[in-house]
């Protein structure tokens, strides 16, 4: 996979993951043009298109478009399954995920994606394992202060660290 873009029906970018090195300007250009192209497609059309020299696979889930650019040797149908798996993971994590969840927790969406794909390929095919890893990492975020101080031999009664407030509502 070369990149994955998530955008709304108005063309607002919600997530962008690039697996190929491109300049910021190029990324912006590709994003702008591709978003336009995909949004212009009618609902009954097929999920695949050739754009520039890449194969594009896209699927709409509610108000969000999930759009991937894959290499010529890649299997388009399985890419649809990869997109679906990612949506399932988000759904499980957020509980009935909607676009707002991804807007307000974009960093989490990235973390989940990074546990599922690495360098453009799937690293874990078990839904359970991906979610478990995210869960553990989240816990780690809350507790690291505690663990670090534990190693240093210092016990603190109150373990709520300041940084964890970032991710609380």
């Amino acid at each position, binding site marked *: 996979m070369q990149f994955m873009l998530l955008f709304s029906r108005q063309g607002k*970018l*919600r*997530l*962008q993951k*690039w*697996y190929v*090195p*491109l*300049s910021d300007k190029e990324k*912006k250009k590709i994003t702008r043009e591709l978003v336009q192209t995909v949004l212009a497609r009618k609902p*009954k*059309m*097929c*999920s*695949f*298109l*050739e754009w520039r020299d890449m194969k594009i696979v896209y699927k709409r889930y509610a108000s969000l478009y999930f759009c991937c650019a894959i290499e010529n*040797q890649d*299997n*388009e*149908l*399985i890419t*649809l*399954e*990869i997109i679906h*798996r990612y949506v399932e993971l988000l759904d499980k994590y957020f509980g009935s995920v909607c676009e707002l969840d991804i*807007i*307000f927790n*974009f*960093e989490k969406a*990235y*973390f989940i994606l*990074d*546990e599922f794909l*690495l*360098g453009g*390929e*799937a*690293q*874990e*095919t*078990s*839904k*359970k*394992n991906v979610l478990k*890893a995210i869960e*553990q*990492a989240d816990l*780690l*975020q809350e507790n*690291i*202060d505690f663990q*670090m101080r534990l190693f240093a031999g210092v016990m603190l009664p109150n373990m709520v*660290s*300041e*940084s*964890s*407030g*970032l991710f609380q*509502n």
Partner: protein
Amino acid sequence: MPAPIRLRELIRTIRTARTQAEEREMIQKECAAIRSSFREEDNTYRCRNVAKLLYMHMLGYPAHFGQLECLKLIASQKFTDKRIGYLGAMLLLDERQDVHLLMTNCIKNDLNHSTQYVQGLALCTLGCMGSSEMCRDLAGEVEKLLKTSNSYLRKKAALCAVHVIRKVPELMEMFLPATKNLLSEKNHGVLHTSVVLLTEMCERSPDMLSHFRKNEKLVPQLVRILKNLIMSGYSPEHDVSGISDPFLQVRILRLLRILGKSDDDSSEAMNDILAQVATNTETSKNVGNAILYETVLTIMDIKSESGLRVLAINILGRFLLNNDKNIRYVALTSLLKTVQTDHNAVQRHRSTIVDCLKDLDVSIKRRAMELSFALVNGNNIRGMMKELLYFLDSCDPEFKADCASGVFLAAEKYAPSKRWHIDTIMRVLTTAGSYVRDDSVPNLIQLITNSVEMHAYTVQRLYKALLDDISQQPLVQVASWCIGEYGDLLVSGQCEEEEPIQVTEDEVLDVLEGLLVSNLSTPVTRGYSLTAIMKLSTRFSGVNRIKKVVSIYGSSIDVELQQRAVEYNALFKKYDHMRPALLERMPIMEKTATNGPTEIVQTNGETEPSVVEPKHLPPVTQPANQANDLLDLLGGNDVVPVIQTTMPTKPASAGGELLDLLGDLSLSGGPATAPASSVPTSQPSFLLDGLSSQPLFNDIAAAAIPPMTAYNKNGLKIDFTFERANPNPNVAVITIHASNSTEADMTEFVFQAAVPKTFQLQLLSPSSNVVPALNQGTVTQVIRVLNPQKLRMRIKLTYTLKGSPVQDLAEVNNFPAQSWQ
């Protein structure tokens, strides 16, 4: 300083902005706050600030001032910091910035961290955006992690290794030992990523590929794993709609494809499992079809037995009938790949494919069109063409050009009859006339010229088309050319193929003049129609009208038209006796390669038996931008009076007149304008050299032909040197060397030559037209002569010496005997 606002708070605030300007204001304010916070080197809130910056970056605002802060976060001990820091690095940094190299050390430390999630972060970042330098530095760490027993890390290390190999292919070797027992893992994540790694290695290196085939016995291992996946019962962890780990299955099939390609043993070893997958996979959901798709691709690529291939094509056939358009699309794509090798099998599905032309989806239509063209053959040409022409009528503009080209190609290859061919072309021109490629106009003209018996029919149909619609330029151009050539047939009502129409000369001229004045006509089209009108002066009886039109355009603003009109006028006034000869019918044109007019030897009319009248000089009427090579040679800028390239000598008077013609008429280009493209690139240095008479075509026979002096008078000496052209030993290449022994330069030097009818002559451009005084240099020019017999030549020289023009004629008879043997 108050605590910076939280991420969520910021997001909420920004979303309340009602206009772009309002949003920009908020962002700028927040950026300023963040910047001052960064300056204070505040560790506590750095994470929060960078996260906010990332959000603003996603909205499209610049965030580069956060790059170094990301690095500080990565270096921090807090996991939260690291998480955001690495995310920031992946979003804001890339290998084009030097800053990213500073990450290398941090990543190295984190790869050895005690917490696997930190190691995971490092592996992920390296695997996504590591540059070649970083990869080189850290490959060793990745390799170590590839051997760990921790499957969480092992799978990430495998994909990281894939990235390293992509960036620095030389490092592939170092990962080889670690791959030894990757496939004996139970963990699906590790299995999947290992297969990806092995695929990458096999794709990149044929050595690796054969190593894995033979030494590692990869194929049996993969077959075993695949079998287990299919046969094993329900596994909730990896199940997708009843299929066990489709991602892994697809990957394995892909690796099998690479291993089995061009290898009999491997292909045989996987035959059974492929058949099993092909027949047992559930096809009701997309997942199953994804696996079948991959299986079909594999079957087609390896050396599978024919039964298996038929199975694969049938699967594709079923896909074509599937309701899901994605599946249909994928089927068409695969069929396109296999149509060359399994043509007959694909032909069986032809009708389904043709039906797909009517699909609403653009991608499917395009695929169906490509596939349809691939399936056209001599047997189905009529039926297929009907469908394709119907498609051409109704398709989107983006398809028309490709479809038109495809139709032309197919028609050329498989046309059942000339009439059908011309009808088909006419249909394309009338429906998609503005989309046909530029070179189709000369190709068409050539086709029409060569179908001698269809001339009357063709010109009639084209005329009728013109009456309907003059907006499609290629159609109009071909039509005007034809009317110019065959207008007499049109007016005389000689058509056999269909009901002849009654057309008067005036009506025809009306139409052509209409083209000249119409807004819809491009300059090129106008050129075509003016020339056509001129040609009709020899075919029609009413010349006065034509004379009038031509003289009007003599003052046209369009330079091209003006030039033509002026020359045609000159033809009327001074050279009326030349007109019939110049404007005669075109001979049959040879289809030539698209490069190298130098390979063309001018054909004189009488050597072509199929042409009706004997020809003397083929008229040059092609406009400047035509790709037709024959006519290109005759004049890039469309000089009507023929350039001196063919000068068959007629009985003395006519011959003399010809040479007179060339002398008196101010050719808008002299020989110097014979297209530069006709000089082969190796020539210029030789010509300008003028030093050695040794030819570039090193033919031993050439050395045997001695040079000779053709002319030596009044200080001007012309020597001829000979060689035989390598490709065609019957062509003698004569190079003239003109030298000047007088005190003054001879300027505007023009060399012209004429040969008897039985020869064919071609004159290339001279090195220059100034012969320097006192033998300081020579002007060279190349003549190519097709000469089966004793050569005779008449030459004419013109130059200006000391301000006064000089002209001379001479006969050259003293060619050495070897030059024609």
